[in-house]
């Protein structure tokens, strides 16, 4: 049993490294794998342009994949545990929509000439998006406490998503075409637009929130028993709920601000991970899903730019192709529905 756990542990990081290198090799300009390894190790290359392509474009994109995948997966895992609902996730419960609303507000207010947000820094956008997540999450938590019913919770999430999306539509209707276009592009989701400053911001958010989540292992495990049992073994529910709210909002907000609303990853990765590593212990699950999230995003990103194709598909199209079957699979085994 434990031996299998350890074996899976080696597979995930190996996959991560492998896909990272493959990902660096993908793109419209073909660079031989040997040259890429050379550039990474700091050696001179035959073509100096390759150096820039790898470091300024492909490296940022590959790193973004890992960061976004990890962040969304940790967020998804925490939400599934908090709500004891296998179908919870940052996009399912409307957090991504909340972030979208906040970001569109920033875009539009910028257009309207509001001084406060006239030059949005990466921190400001990430902060606004996190606030948007936080707002939606708070509403969902308050409603969930009244309902205690898995299906209703999902419907509430859908409604929250629909409401924020419609608010965004209203904002778009009222704004100028140029801003609409930049917003539309953002909603497709993109992993390739981040500069090094934004990557640093995202890294800081992921590391901080990830560590907080790891230190909340005891509370997260406690949630699995339900509110009453968790309290009876000394878990402070309100404190824990606030910590999960905060870290999940930061993680989802950060990713959504820079990469757009990326669907299905936060929902699917925890389940895919639990197939490989059969445990409920968050001490193992949190590191595992963060690596698995990176792996899945790198994989999806590679699929978006299949070799020989001049087109790069929107990342959300691919994550949905991977994620939707996972959802169907979860519902099919609903008899043993388990968080």
């Amino acid at each position, binding site marked *: 049993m434990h031996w299998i756990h350890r074996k899976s542990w080696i597979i995930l990081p190996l996959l991560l490294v492998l896909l990272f290198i493959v990902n660096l090799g993908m793109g419209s300009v073909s660079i031989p794998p040997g040259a890429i390894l050379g550039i990474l190790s700091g050696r001179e290359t035959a073509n100096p342009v390759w150096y820039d392509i790898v470091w300024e474009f492909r490296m940022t994109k590959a790193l973004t994949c890992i960061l976004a995948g990890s962040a969304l997966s940790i967020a998804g895992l925490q939400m599934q545990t908090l709500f004891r609902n296998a179908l919870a996730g940052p996009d399912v419960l409307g957090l991504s929509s909340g972030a979208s609303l906040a970001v569109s507000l920033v875009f539009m207010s910028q257009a309207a000439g509001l001084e406060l947000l006239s030059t949005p820094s990466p921190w400001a956008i990430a902060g606004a998006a996190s606030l948007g997540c936080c707002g939606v999450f708070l509403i969902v938590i308050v409603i969930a406490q009244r309902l205690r019913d898995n299906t209703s919770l999902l419907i509430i999430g859908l409604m929250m998503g629909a409401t924020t999306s419609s608010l965004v539509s209203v904002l778009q209707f009222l704004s100028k075409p140029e801003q609409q276009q930049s917003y539309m592009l953002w909603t497709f989701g993109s992993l390739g637009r981040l500069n090094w400053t934004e990557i640093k911001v995202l890294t800081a958010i992921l590391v901080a929130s990830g560590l907080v989540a790891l230190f909340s292992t005891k509370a997260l495990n406690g949630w*699995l028993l339900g509110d009453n049992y968790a*309290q009876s073994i000394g878990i402070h529910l309100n404190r824990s709920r606030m910590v999960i709210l905060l870290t999940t909002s930061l993680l989802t907000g950060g990713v959504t601000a820079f990469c757009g609303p990326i669907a299905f990853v936060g929902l699917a990765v925890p389940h895919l991970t639990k197939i490989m590593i059969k445990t409920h*212990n968050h001490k193992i699950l949190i590191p595992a899903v963060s690596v698995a999230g990176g792996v899945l995003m790198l994989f999806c990103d590679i699929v978006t730019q299949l070799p020989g194709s001049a087109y790069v598909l929107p990342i959300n199209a691919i994550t949905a192709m991977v994620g939707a079957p996972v959802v169907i699979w979860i519902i099919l085994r609903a008899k*043993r529905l388990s*968080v």
Partner: protein
Amino acid sequence: MTSKTALVSLHNLSVGYALPGSKNILFENLELTLNAGELTCFMGPNGVGKSTLIRTLAGLQKPLTGEVHHGAVPSRASLGPLPHQVSVVLTDRIATVQMDVRELVSFGRYPYMGWGITLSDDDQQKVSDALREVHIEYLADKKLYELSDGQQQMVMIARALAQDTPVILLDEPTAHLDLNNRVEVMNLLRRLARKLNKAILIATHELDLALQTADLIWLAGRGKTLVTGIPEDLVLSGVFDEVFQLKGYDLKTGKIAHEAYRDKMISLQGDGHAYLWTRNALERNGFSVTSPGASYPHIDVVENDGHTQWIINQKAFFETLQTLLTHLI
């Protein structure tokens, strides 16, 4: 007389739900104790507020007024749960059914662990001890979804034991179990109270079992108050009949009262179990059973080579009660 150690004491306790503008009070002014080494059964009809009082004693819910003291030191449950003092077995289902039994029982050790939740050797030992006390070591590696309701209940009791608290509160631990499992759970809890000197409170509405196992009964009656006493006193005082409004169940004999609807008298002679069950069969079928002597039809219950025979008026022989009854009816 030795004085009992009160592990939990209720002082002027009122429980219920405070709604905006109104209060739904379920119990008022309770002055009670739970003692070390005693099994207390908390009885009352459904919906009287048993779960609410259990939750309040466990610190999962705030009392409306009054205090709950735990142990010698008056710590107040109104301040929240006391994981080192009280463990609970509730009616909540565990949703994570992929978890295995040992994992679930290990949750009992959480109050003693830091954020890294590493089970020390001592913790491991306590988990194994708990599994052994409840006789479910053979289930340790099973997944929760593989267990029957009765087994799951045993696992939840083991989890509470692993928490190693002086007080255990259980809400309907025998619900959904068959008679055999119900008896096993009650006997187990009684043994644990005695052996480990714990104060155990069981909320239940199962009269027969509670009367035969409890050291003390808390009976929720009318008027938001509790009547307490040992089972026998409460039976004789008739308070159970009043609370449960028993319909056809004679508590003093422990039997269901049958009306002699056939309007036929019959006399019966015999002894032991065979006599009792024959009488039961006759009464259940509407006969009025008297002692021998009168001029009614007479049945002798006799042991013959290790099996029972029934003889009517010393003439007709019957090998089973069923054939006897067919003959009579």
